[in-house]
Protein backbone atom coordinates (compact mmCIF):
# COMPACT_ATOMS: atom_id res chain seq x y z
CA UNK A 1 0.00 0.00 0.00
CA UNK A 2 2.73 2.41 1.07
CA UNK A 3 4.85 1.63 -2.00
CA UNK A 4 1.91 2.10 -4.28
CA UNK A 5 1.12 5.49 -2.78
CA UNK A 6 4.78 6.51 -2.96
CA UNK A 7 4.85 5.52 -6.60
CA UNK A 8 1.82 7.63 -7.28
CA UNK A 9 3.47 10.40 -5.33
CA UNK A 10 6.61 10.26 -7.43
CA UNK A 11 4.61 11.17 -10.52
CA UNK A 12 4.12 14.48 -8.73
CA UNK A 13 0.73 15.09 -10.24
CA UNK A 14 0.43 18.71 -9.28
CA UNK A 15 -2.67 20.74 -9.88
CA UNK A 16 -1.53 22.33 -13.13
CA UNK A 17 -0.61 19.06 -14.87
CA UNK A 18 -3.84 17.39 -13.81
CA UNK A 19 -5.82 20.38 -14.98
CA UNK A 20 -3.91 20.53 -18.27
CA UNK A 21 -4.37 16.85 -19.11
CA UNK A 22 -7.97 16.90 -18.03
CA UNK A 23 -8.71 20.01 -20.03
CA UNK A 24 -7.07 18.69 -23.19
CA UNK A 25 -8.99 15.46 -23.07
CA UNK A 26 -12.19 17.37 -22.35
CA UNK A 27 -11.62 19.66 -25.31
CA UNK A 28 -11.09 16.65 -27.52
CA UNK A 29 -14.18 14.80 -26.29
CA UNK A 30 -16.44 17.85 -26.47
CA UNK A 31 -15.11 18.83 -29.89
CA UNK A 32 -15.78 15.34 -31.23
CA UNK A 33 -19.28 15.42 -29.74
CA UNK A 34 -19.91 18.76 -31.43
CA UNK A 35 -18.80 17.36 -34.79
CA UNK A 36 -20.94 14.25 -34.36
CA UNK A 37 -23.93 16.35 -33.32
CA UNK A 38 -23.59 18.60 -36.36
CA UNK A 39 -23.38 15.49 -38.55
CA UNK A 40 -26.56 14.34 -36.85
CA UNK A 41 -28.27 17.60 -37.81
CA UNK A 42 -27.84 16.96 -41.51
CA UNK A 43 -28.03 13.16 -41.54
CA UNK A 44 -31.02 12.64 -39.28
CA UNK A 45 -34.29 11.81 -40.98
CA UNK A 46 -36.74 13.29 -38.52
CA UNK A 47 -36.74 17.10 -38.16
CA UNK A 48 -37.25 17.08 -34.41
CA UNK A 49 -34.15 14.96 -33.89
CA UNK A 50 -32.24 17.30 -36.20
CA UNK A 51 -33.27 20.24 -34.04
CA UNK A 52 -32.23 18.36 -30.91
CA UNK A 53 -28.85 17.56 -32.44
CA UNK A 54 -28.45 21.26 -33.22
CA UNK A 55 -29.15 22.08 -29.58
CA UNK A 56 -26.58 19.49 -28.57
CA UNK A 57 -24.08 21.09 -30.93
CA UNK A 58 -24.70 24.53 -29.43
CA UNK A 59 -24.31 23.25 -25.90
CA UNK A 60 -21.01 21.62 -26.92
CA UNK A 61 -19.80 24.93 -28.39
CA UNK A 62 -20.77 26.67 -25.15
CA UNK A 63 -18.77 24.09 -23.21
CA UNK A 64 -15.77 24.74 -25.48
CA UNK A 65 -16.06 28.48 -24.78
CA UNK A 66 -16.17 27.62 -21.09
CA UNK A 67 -13.02 25.52 -21.34
CA UNK A 68 -11.19 28.44 -22.95
CA UNK A 69 -12.20 30.75 -20.06
CA UNK A 70 -14.77 32.69 -22.09
CA UNK A 71 -17.52 32.07 -19.57
CA UNK A 72 -19.61 35.06 -20.59
CA UNK A 73 -19.64 33.98 -24.24
CA UNK A 74 -20.53 30.43 -23.18
CA UNK A 75 -23.53 31.54 -21.18
CA UNK A 76 -24.69 33.95 -23.87
CA UNK A 77 -24.41 31.15 -26.40
CA UNK A 78 -26.72 29.00 -24.29
CA UNK A 79 -29.15 31.80 -23.43
CA UNK A 80 -29.52 33.17 -26.94
CA UNK A 81 -29.09 30.21 -29.26
CA UNK A 82 -29.93 27.13 -27.28
CA UNK A 83 -32.44 28.85 -24.99
CA UNK A 84 -34.32 31.21 -27.26
CA UNK A 85 -33.72 30.56 -30.95
CA UNK A 86 -33.92 26.79 -30.88
CA UNK A 87 -37.04 26.74 -28.73
CA UNK A 88 -38.80 28.64 -31.52
CA UNK A 89 -37.51 26.08 -34.03
CA UNK A 90 -38.89 23.26 -31.90
CA UNK A 91 -42.13 25.20 -31.56
CA UNK A 92 -42.58 25.38 -35.33
CA UNK A 93 -41.60 21.75 -35.88
CA UNK A 94 -44.00 20.57 -33.20
CA UNK A 95 -46.83 22.70 -34.61
CA UNK A 96 -46.34 21.70 -38.23
CA UNK A 97 -45.90 18.06 -37.35
CA UNK A 98 -42.78 16.24 -38.36
CA UNK A 99 -42.71 13.72 -41.13
CA UNK A 100 -39.73 11.49 -41.55
CA UNK A 101 -37.89 12.08 -44.78
CA UNK A 102 -37.72 9.15 -47.12
CA UNK A 103 -34.24 8.03 -47.92
CA UNK A 104 -33.62 6.94 -51.51
CA UNK A 105 -30.32 7.33 -53.22
CA UNK A 106 -31.21 9.13 -56.43
CA UNK A 107 -28.82 10.71 -58.90
CA UNK A 108 -29.12 14.10 -57.18
CA UNK A 109 -28.27 12.58 -53.83
CA UNK A 110 -25.27 10.88 -55.33
CA UNK A 111 -24.08 14.14 -56.87
CA UNK A 112 -24.65 15.93 -53.60
CA UNK A 113 -22.70 13.34 -51.66
CA UNK A 114 -19.79 13.48 -54.06
CA UNK A 115 -19.69 17.28 -53.80
CA UNK A 116 -19.68 17.05 -50.03
CA UNK A 117 -16.89 14.51 -50.20
CA UNK A 118 -14.82 16.78 -52.45
CA UNK A 119 -15.33 19.77 -50.17
CA UNK A 120 -14.39 17.70 -47.16
CA UNK A 121 -11.16 16.59 -48.83
CA UNK A 122 -10.37 20.20 -49.73
CA UNK A 123 -10.93 21.13 -46.11
CA UNK A 124 -8.46 18.48 -45.01
CA UNK A 125 -5.97 19.77 -47.56
CA UNK A 126 -6.40 23.34 -46.36
CA UNK A 127 -5.77 22.19 -42.81
CA UNK A 128 -2.40 20.73 -43.68
CA UNK A 129 -1.23 23.73 -45.72
CA UNK A 130 -1.02 26.66 -43.32
CA UNK A 131 -1.71 27.46 -39.73
CA UNK A 132 -4.11 30.12 -38.56
CA UNK A 133 -2.87 33.37 -37.07
CA UNK A 134 -3.55 34.01 -33.38
CA UNK A 135 -5.87 36.91 -32.68
CA UNK A 136 -4.07 39.89 -31.19
CA UNK A 137 -5.85 42.02 -28.61
CA UNK A 138 -5.37 44.25 -25.62
CA UNK A 139 -7.08 41.85 -23.26
CA UNK A 140 -4.57 39.36 -21.90
CA UNK A 141 -5.49 36.41 -19.68
CA UNK A 142 -4.23 38.37 -16.66
CA UNK A 143 -6.53 41.29 -17.40
CA UNK A 144 -9.35 38.85 -18.01
CA UNK A 145 -8.82 37.11 -14.70
CA UNK A 146 -8.91 40.44 -12.93
CA UNK A 147 -11.94 41.92 -14.66
CA UNK A 148 -14.05 38.87 -15.42
CA UNK A 149 -15.07 38.14 -18.98
CA UNK A 150 -18.42 39.96 -18.83
CA UNK A 151 -16.74 43.22 -17.82
CA UNK A 152 -13.90 42.78 -20.33
CA UNK A 153 -16.34 42.26 -23.20
CA UNK A 154 -18.43 45.20 -22.04
CA UNK A 155 -15.44 47.54 -21.89
CA UNK A 156 -14.20 46.35 -25.28
CA UNK A 157 -17.62 46.69 -26.93
CA UNK A 158 -18.56 50.06 -25.48
CA UNK A 159 -15.22 51.79 -25.89
CA UNK A 160 -13.50 50.57 -29.06
CA UNK A 161 -16.41 49.20 -31.02
CA UNK A 162 -19.26 51.44 -29.94
CA UNK A 163 -20.25 52.54 -33.46
CA UNK A 164 -20.43 49.09 -35.09
CA UNK A 165 -22.15 47.75 -31.98
CA UNK A 166 -24.84 50.41 -32.05
CA UNK A 167 -25.23 49.99 -35.82
CA UNK A 168 -25.76 46.27 -35.35
CA UNK A 169 -28.40 46.92 -32.70
CA UNK A 170 -30.09 49.37 -35.07
CA UNK A 171 -30.09 46.68 -37.74
CA UNK A 172 -31.75 44.25 -35.35
CA UNK A 173 -34.37 46.87 -34.47
CA UNK A 174 -35.10 47.46 -38.16
CA UNK A 175 -35.43 43.71 -38.66
CA UNK A 176 -37.86 43.43 -35.74
CA UNK A 177 -40.00 46.30 -37.05
CA UNK A 178 -39.89 44.78 -40.52
CA UNK A 179 -41.08 41.40 -39.26
CA UNK A 180 -43.98 42.95 -37.41
CA UNK A 181 -45.05 44.97 -40.45
CA UNK A 182 -44.76 41.90 -42.69
CA UNK A 183 -46.61 39.58 -40.34
CA UNK A 184 -49.31 42.13 -39.50
CA UNK A 185 -52.66 40.96 -40.77
CA UNK A 186 -55.54 43.30 -41.51
CA UNK A 187 -57.80 42.96 -38.55
CA UNK A 188 -61.52 42.86 -39.09
CA UNK A 189 -64.04 42.69 -36.28
CA UNK A 190 -65.49 39.23 -35.78
CA UNK A 191 -69.00 40.10 -37.01
CA UNK A 192 -67.86 41.42 -40.35
CA UNK A 193 -65.61 38.46 -40.87
CA UNK A 194 -68.43 35.98 -40.38
CA UNK A 195 -70.65 37.83 -42.87
CA UNK A 196 -68.22 37.87 -45.75
Amino acid at each position, binding site marked *: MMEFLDQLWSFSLDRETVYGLFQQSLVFVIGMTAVLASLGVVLCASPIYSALYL*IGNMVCLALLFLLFNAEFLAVVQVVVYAGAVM*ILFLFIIALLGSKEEKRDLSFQNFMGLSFVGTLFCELLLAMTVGETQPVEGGVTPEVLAELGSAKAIGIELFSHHIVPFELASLLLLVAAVGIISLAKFTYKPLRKRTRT
Partner: protein
Amino acid sequence: MIDDILNFLDPYWWLIIGVVKAVVIAVGLLTVVSPLVWLERRLMGRFQVRRGPNRVGPFGLIQPFVDVVKLLFKENIVQKSADKFLFYLAPAIVVFTAIVTFSAIPFGEPIEIGGQTVGLWGANLNIGLLFIFAVSSMGIYGIVIAGFSSNNKYSLMGGLRSSAQMISYELTLGLTALCVVIMSGSLNLYEIVKSQSAIPNAIPLFPAFVLFFIAGVAETNRAPFDLPEAEQELVAGFFTEYSGMKFALFFLGEYVNMITMSALVTILFLGGWNSYIGLDIPILIFAFKVFLLLCVFIWLRSTFPRIRYDRLMTFGWKFLLPASLVIMLFYSAVKVYSVTA
Protein backbone atom coordinates in the same frame (compact mmCIF):
# COMPACT_ATOMS: atom_id res chain seq x y z
CA MET B 1 -2.29 3.70 7.19
CA ILE B 2 -5.03 6.31 7.48
CA ASP B 3 -2.35 8.95 7.91
CA ASP B 4 -0.73 7.86 4.67
CA ILE B 5 -3.97 8.15 2.79
CA LEU B 6 -4.65 11.54 4.35
CA ASN B 7 -1.15 12.70 3.40
CA PHE B 8 -1.69 11.48 -0.12
CA LEU B 9 -5.04 13.20 -0.37
CA ASP B 10 -3.80 16.46 1.12
CA PRO B 11 -3.15 18.32 -2.18
CA TYR B 12 -6.47 17.12 -3.56
CA TRP B 13 -8.76 18.63 -0.94
CA TRP B 14 -10.30 20.94 -3.49
CA LEU B 15 -11.45 17.92 -5.48
CA ILE B 16 -12.95 16.14 -2.47
CA ILE B 17 -14.66 19.29 -1.26
CA GLY B 18 -16.17 19.78 -4.70
CA VAL B 19 -17.52 16.23 -4.84
CA VAL B 20 -18.93 16.44 -1.31
CA LYS B 21 -20.58 19.77 -2.08
CA ALA B 22 -22.16 18.40 -5.26
CA VAL B 23 -23.53 15.38 -3.42
CA VAL B 24 -24.80 17.45 -0.49
CA ILE B 25 -26.60 19.92 -2.76
CA ALA B 26 -28.21 17.26 -4.95
CA VAL B 27 -29.28 15.01 -2.08
CA GLY B 28 -30.35 17.94 0.08
CA LEU B 29 -32.57 19.34 -2.66
CA LEU B 30 -34.17 15.98 -3.35
CA THR B 31 -34.89 15.40 0.34
CA VAL B 32 -36.35 18.85 0.83
CA VAL B 33 -38.92 18.23 -1.90
CA SER B 34 -41.02 15.68 -0.02
CA PRO B 35 -41.49 17.82 3.12
CA LEU B 36 -42.32 20.68 0.75
CA VAL B 37 -45.07 18.61 -0.87
CA TRP B 38 -46.38 17.83 2.62
CA LEU B 39 -46.24 21.53 3.55
CA GLU B 40 -48.09 22.51 0.40
CA ARG B 41 -50.89 19.97 0.90
CA ARG B 42 -51.17 20.85 4.57
CA LEU B 43 -51.28 24.61 3.96
CA MET B 44 -53.67 24.22 1.03
CA GLY B 45 -55.92 22.27 3.37
CA ARG B 46 -55.89 25.13 5.87
CA PHE B 47 -56.50 27.72 3.16
CA GLN B 48 -59.48 25.77 1.83
CA VAL B 49 -60.90 25.08 5.32
CA ARG B 50 -60.22 21.36 5.32
CA ARG B 51 -57.67 19.23 7.10
CA GLY B 52 -55.19 18.14 4.46
CA PRO B 53 -53.23 14.88 4.87
CA ASN B 54 -53.46 13.75 8.52
CA ARG B 55 -53.72 9.97 8.54
CA VAL B 56 -50.21 8.66 7.90
CA GLY B 57 -47.96 9.47 10.86
CA PRO B 58 -48.29 12.48 13.16
CA PHE B 59 -49.87 15.40 11.23
CA GLY B 60 -49.59 13.27 8.10
CA LEU B 61 -45.83 13.79 8.09
CA ILE B 62 -45.08 10.35 6.64
CA GLN B 63 -47.52 10.96 3.76
CA PRO B 64 -44.97 12.22 1.17
CA PHE B 65 -42.65 9.26 1.81
CA VAL B 66 -45.53 6.84 1.40
CA ASP B 67 -46.39 8.64 -1.83
CA VAL B 68 -42.84 8.19 -3.08
CA VAL B 69 -43.02 4.46 -2.38
CA LYS B 70 -46.36 4.29 -4.18
CA LEU B 71 -44.94 6.09 -7.22
CA LEU B 72 -41.88 3.84 -7.29
CA PHE B 73 -43.97 0.68 -7.38
CA LYS B 74 -46.54 1.92 -9.88
CA GLU B 75 -46.65 0.34 -13.30
CA ASN B 76 -44.65 2.28 -15.82
CA ILE B 77 -46.84 2.83 -18.87
CA VAL B 78 -45.37 3.96 -22.18
CA GLN B 79 -47.89 4.03 -24.97
CA LYS B 80 -46.98 2.45 -28.27
CA SER B 81 -47.14 5.61 -30.36
CA ALA B 82 -44.71 7.52 -28.14
CA ASP B 83 -41.20 8.35 -29.24
CA LYS B 84 -39.45 6.14 -26.68
CA PHE B 85 -36.09 7.88 -26.49
CA LEU B 86 -37.47 11.39 -26.12
CA PHE B 87 -40.17 10.12 -23.78
CA TYR B 88 -37.50 8.89 -21.39
CA LEU B 89 -35.21 11.87 -21.97
CA ALA B 90 -37.73 14.60 -21.08
CA PRO B 91 -38.11 14.04 -17.31
CA ALA B 92 -34.35 13.60 -17.03
CA ILE B 93 -33.76 17.02 -18.61
CA VAL B 94 -36.26 18.66 -16.28
CA VAL B 95 -34.67 17.27 -13.10
CA PHE B 96 -31.09 17.70 -14.31
CA THR B 97 -31.49 21.39 -15.18
CA ALA B 98 -33.40 22.05 -11.96
CA ILE B 99 -30.60 20.65 -9.80
CA VAL B 100 -27.78 22.21 -11.83
CA THR B 101 -29.46 25.60 -11.58
CA PHE B 102 -29.43 25.41 -7.81
CA SER B 103 -25.71 24.60 -7.78
CA ALA B 104 -24.84 28.24 -8.54
CA ILE B 105 -26.75 29.59 -5.56
CA PRO B 106 -24.71 30.70 -2.54
CA PHE B 107 -26.32 30.37 0.87
CA GLY B 108 -23.78 31.72 3.32
CA GLU B 109 -20.35 33.16 3.98
CA PRO B 110 -17.39 30.82 3.42
CA ILE B 111 -16.65 28.77 6.56
CA GLU B 112 -13.52 27.06 7.88
CA ILE B 113 -13.53 23.28 8.16
CA GLY B 114 -10.26 21.62 9.22
CA GLY B 115 -8.11 24.46 7.94
CA GLN B 116 -9.88 24.54 4.58
CA THR B 117 -12.05 27.44 3.51
CA VAL B 118 -15.29 26.03 2.22
CA GLY B 119 -17.69 28.29 0.41
CA LEU B 120 -21.32 27.50 1.02
CA TRP B 121 -22.18 27.18 -2.63
CA GLY B 122 -21.88 24.65 -5.41
CA ALA B 123 -19.93 27.03 -7.60
CA ASN B 124 -19.21 30.71 -7.09
CA LEU B 125 -19.36 31.90 -10.68
CA ASN B 126 -18.50 35.40 -11.85
CA ILE B 127 -21.53 35.19 -14.09
CA GLY B 128 -23.72 33.32 -11.60
CA LEU B 129 -26.92 35.12 -12.47
CA LEU B 130 -26.53 34.55 -16.21
CA PHE B 131 -25.63 30.91 -15.57
CA ILE B 132 -28.86 30.40 -13.66
CA PHE B 133 -30.91 31.93 -16.48
CA ALA B 134 -29.05 29.90 -19.10
CA VAL B 135 -29.52 26.54 -17.41
CA SER B 136 -33.10 27.17 -16.36
CA SER B 137 -33.96 28.14 -19.93
CA MET B 138 -32.70 24.72 -21.00
CA GLY B 139 -35.30 23.21 -18.67
CA ILE B 140 -38.04 24.30 -21.08
CA TYR B 141 -36.81 21.65 -23.49
CA GLY B 142 -37.79 18.94 -21.07
CA ILE B 143 -41.37 20.17 -21.11
CA VAL B 144 -41.55 20.70 -24.87
CA ILE B 145 -40.01 17.31 -25.58
CA ALA B 146 -42.38 15.65 -23.11
CA GLY B 147 -45.33 17.24 -24.87
CA PHE B 148 -44.06 16.29 -28.30
CA SER B 149 -42.96 12.73 -27.61
CA SER B 150 -46.20 11.72 -25.90
CA ASN B 151 -47.94 11.86 -29.28
CA ASN B 152 -51.05 13.27 -27.68
CA LYS B 153 -52.81 16.50 -28.61
CA TYR B 154 -53.31 17.64 -25.03
CA SER B 155 -49.69 17.02 -24.20
CA LEU B 156 -48.54 18.88 -27.30
CA MET B 157 -50.70 21.86 -26.45
CA GLY B 158 -49.40 21.82 -22.89
CA GLY B 159 -45.80 21.73 -24.08
CA LEU B 160 -46.30 24.55 -26.58
CA ARG B 161 -48.17 26.70 -24.08
CA SER B 162 -45.45 26.23 -21.56
CA SER B 163 -42.64 27.12 -23.96
CA ALA B 164 -44.45 30.26 -25.12
CA GLN B 165 -45.18 31.25 -21.53
CA MET B 166 -41.68 30.65 -20.29
CA ILE B 167 -40.07 32.58 -23.16
CA SER B 168 -42.41 35.52 -22.58
CA TYR B 169 -41.86 35.72 -18.85
CA GLU B 170 -38.13 35.08 -19.05
CA LEU B 171 -37.75 38.53 -20.62
CA THR B 172 -39.34 40.23 -17.64
CA LEU B 173 -37.35 38.06 -15.29
CA GLY B 174 -34.10 39.01 -17.01
CA LEU B 175 -34.84 42.73 -17.22
CA THR B 176 -35.85 43.05 -13.57
CA ALA B 177 -32.82 41.04 -12.47
CA LEU B 178 -30.77 43.45 -14.57
CA CYS B 179 -31.92 46.28 -12.27
CA VAL B 180 -30.20 44.49 -9.40
CA VAL B 181 -27.10 43.95 -11.53
CA ILE B 182 -27.03 47.63 -12.44
CA MET B 183 -27.34 48.75 -8.83
CA SER B 184 -24.82 46.30 -7.38
CA GLY B 185 -22.47 46.33 -10.38
CA SER B 186 -21.86 42.59 -10.42
CA LEU B 187 -23.26 39.40 -11.92
CA ASN B 188 -21.78 37.38 -9.08
CA LEU B 189 -24.52 36.31 -6.67
CA TYR B 190 -22.16 36.39 -3.68
CA GLU B 191 -21.18 39.99 -4.48
CA ILE B 192 -24.84 40.90 -4.93
CA VAL B 193 -25.62 39.64 -1.43
CA LYS B 194 -22.55 41.47 -0.10
CA SER B 195 -23.79 44.74 -1.62
CA GLN B 196 -27.01 44.44 0.39
CA SER B 197 -25.37 44.33 3.81
CA ALA B 198 -26.98 47.65 4.83
CA ILE B 199 -30.42 47.44 3.29
CA PRO B 200 -32.11 44.69 1.23
CA ASN B 201 -32.71 45.47 -2.44
CA ALA B 202 -36.44 44.93 -2.02
CA ILE B 203 -36.79 48.40 -0.50
CA PRO B 204 -35.00 50.63 -3.04
CA LEU B 205 -35.92 48.32 -5.94
CA PHE B 206 -39.47 47.57 -4.85
CA PRO B 207 -41.16 47.67 -8.31
CA ALA B 208 -38.47 45.41 -9.77
CA PHE B 209 -38.97 43.03 -6.83
CA VAL B 210 -42.72 42.77 -7.44
CA LEU B 211 -42.32 42.23 -11.19
CA PHE B 212 -39.54 39.68 -10.65
CA PHE B 213 -41.67 37.69 -8.26
CA ILE B 214 -44.68 37.67 -10.62
CA ALA B 215 -42.50 36.59 -13.54
CA GLY B 216 -40.86 34.01 -11.27
CA VAL B 217 -44.20 32.44 -10.42
CA ALA B 218 -45.02 32.29 -14.14
CA GLU B 219 -41.59 30.89 -14.93
CA THR B 220 -41.99 27.98 -12.51
CA ASN B 221 -45.43 27.18 -14.00
CA ARG B 222 -47.16 27.63 -10.66
CA ALA B 223 -50.75 28.67 -10.17
CA PRO B 224 -52.23 31.12 -11.17
CA PHE B 225 -49.94 30.73 -14.19
CA ASP B 226 -50.12 26.93 -14.42
CA LEU B 227 -51.57 27.00 -17.93
CA PRO B 228 -49.29 24.24 -19.26
CA GLU B 229 -50.95 21.72 -16.96
CA ALA B 230 -54.44 23.23 -16.73
CA GLU B 231 -56.40 20.20 -15.55
CA GLN B 232 -59.77 21.40 -16.75
CA GLU B 233 -58.70 22.01 -20.35
CA LEU B 234 -55.68 19.84 -21.01
CA VAL B 235 -56.16 16.85 -18.64
CA ALA B 236 -52.70 17.38 -17.17
CA GLY B 237 -50.89 19.12 -19.99
CA PHE B 238 -47.47 17.94 -20.99
CA PHE B 239 -47.28 15.03 -18.53
CA THR B 240 -50.67 13.49 -19.28
CA GLU B 241 -49.11 10.31 -20.59
CA TYR B 242 -46.51 9.92 -17.88
CA SER B 243 -46.98 7.54 -14.99
CA GLY B 244 -45.10 6.25 -11.99
CA MET B 245 -41.67 7.62 -11.23
CA LYS B 246 -41.36 9.52 -14.51
CA PHE B 247 -44.42 11.53 -13.56
CA ALA B 248 -42.88 12.06 -10.15
CA LEU B 249 -39.72 13.42 -11.79
CA PHE B 250 -41.71 16.26 -13.40
CA PHE B 251 -43.21 16.95 -10.02
CA LEU B 252 -39.77 16.93 -8.48
CA GLY B 253 -38.45 19.31 -11.14
CA GLU B 254 -41.28 21.75 -10.51
CA TYR B 255 -40.66 21.83 -6.77
CA VAL B 256 -36.89 22.14 -7.13
CA ASN B 257 -37.49 25.03 -9.54
CA MET B 258 -39.76 26.59 -6.95
CA ILE B 259 -37.03 26.34 -4.32
CA THR B 260 -34.45 27.77 -6.73
CA MET B 261 -36.71 30.67 -7.62
CA SER B 262 -37.34 31.44 -3.94
CA ALA B 263 -33.60 31.29 -3.27
CA LEU B 264 -32.95 33.60 -6.22
CA VAL B 265 -35.51 36.14 -4.99
CA THR B 266 -33.93 35.91 -1.53
CA ILE B 267 -30.48 36.59 -2.95
CA LEU B 268 -31.41 39.32 -5.39
CA PHE B 269 -33.94 41.26 -3.34
CA LEU B 270 -34.18 40.10 0.27
CA GLY B 271 -30.52 40.38 1.18
CA GLY B 272 -29.59 36.69 1.18
CA TRP B 273 -28.16 35.64 4.54
CA ASN B 274 -28.00 39.16 6.00
CA SER B 275 -30.33 39.18 8.99
CA TYR B 276 -30.54 43.00 9.59
CA ILE B 277 -31.47 42.38 13.23
CA GLY B 278 -28.07 41.25 14.48
CA LEU B 279 -28.53 37.48 14.31
CA ASP B 280 -25.44 35.57 13.22
CA ILE B 281 -26.86 32.34 11.80
CA PRO B 282 -26.49 32.90 8.04
CA ILE B 283 -27.72 29.54 6.73
CA LEU B 284 -30.78 29.50 8.97
CA ILE B 285 -31.69 33.05 8.00
CA PHE B 286 -31.33 32.19 4.34
CA ALA B 287 -33.45 29.06 4.79
CA PHE B 288 -36.07 31.03 6.71
CA LYS B 289 -36.42 33.59 3.93
CA VAL B 290 -36.69 30.85 1.31
CA PHE B 291 -39.29 29.10 3.46
CA LEU B 292 -41.37 32.28 3.72
CA LEU B 293 -41.28 32.74 -0.06
CA LEU B 294 -42.30 29.10 -0.60
CA CYS B 295 -45.29 29.72 1.67
CA VAL B 296 -46.16 32.75 -0.47
CA PHE B 297 -46.03 30.51 -3.56
CA ILE B 298 -48.49 28.12 -1.92
CA TRP B 299 -50.63 30.99 -0.68
CA LEU B 300 -50.87 32.37 -4.23
CA ARG B 301 -51.85 28.97 -5.56
CA SER B 302 -54.77 28.59 -3.21
CA THR B 303 -55.92 32.20 -3.54
CA PHE B 304 -56.02 33.04 -7.23
CA PRO B 305 -57.94 31.30 -10.02
CA ARG B 306 -56.02 30.39 -13.15
CA ILE B 307 -55.99 33.21 -15.67
CA ARG B 308 -57.06 32.71 -19.28
CA TYR B 309 -54.35 31.90 -21.80
CA ASP B 310 -54.69 34.99 -24.00
CA ARG B 311 -54.79 37.18 -20.89
CA LEU B 312 -51.60 35.53 -19.72
CA MET B 313 -49.80 36.45 -22.93
CA THR B 314 -51.28 39.96 -23.02
CA PHE B 315 -50.27 40.49 -19.40
CA GLY B 316 -46.76 39.27 -20.10
CA TRP B 317 -46.10 41.22 -23.29
CA LYS B 318 -48.20 44.34 -22.93
CA PHE B 319 -47.86 45.06 -19.24
CA LEU B 320 -44.97 43.25 -17.58
CA LEU B 321 -42.40 43.72 -20.36
CA PRO B 322 -42.90 47.49 -20.93
CA ALA B 323 -43.12 48.05 -17.19
CA SER B 324 -39.86 46.21 -16.56
CA LEU B 325 -38.19 48.11 -19.42
CA VAL B 326 -39.24 51.43 -17.89
CA ILE B 327 -38.05 50.34 -14.46
CA MET B 328 -34.72 49.24 -15.89
CA LEU B 329 -34.24 52.56 -17.67
CA PHE B 330 -35.14 54.41 -14.48
CA TYR B 331 -32.58 52.53 -12.38
CA SER B 332 -29.92 52.91 -15.09
CA ALA B 333 -30.53 56.66 -14.99
CA VAL B 334 -30.29 56.64 -11.18
CA LYS B 335 -27.04 54.70 -11.38
CA VAL B 336 -25.53 57.02 -14.00
CA TYR B 337 -26.57 60.02 -11.95
CA SER B 338 -25.08 58.60 -8.75
CA VAL B 339 -21.83 57.74 -10.52
CA THR B 340 -21.37 61.11 -12.20
CA ALA B 341 -22.63 63.28 -9.33
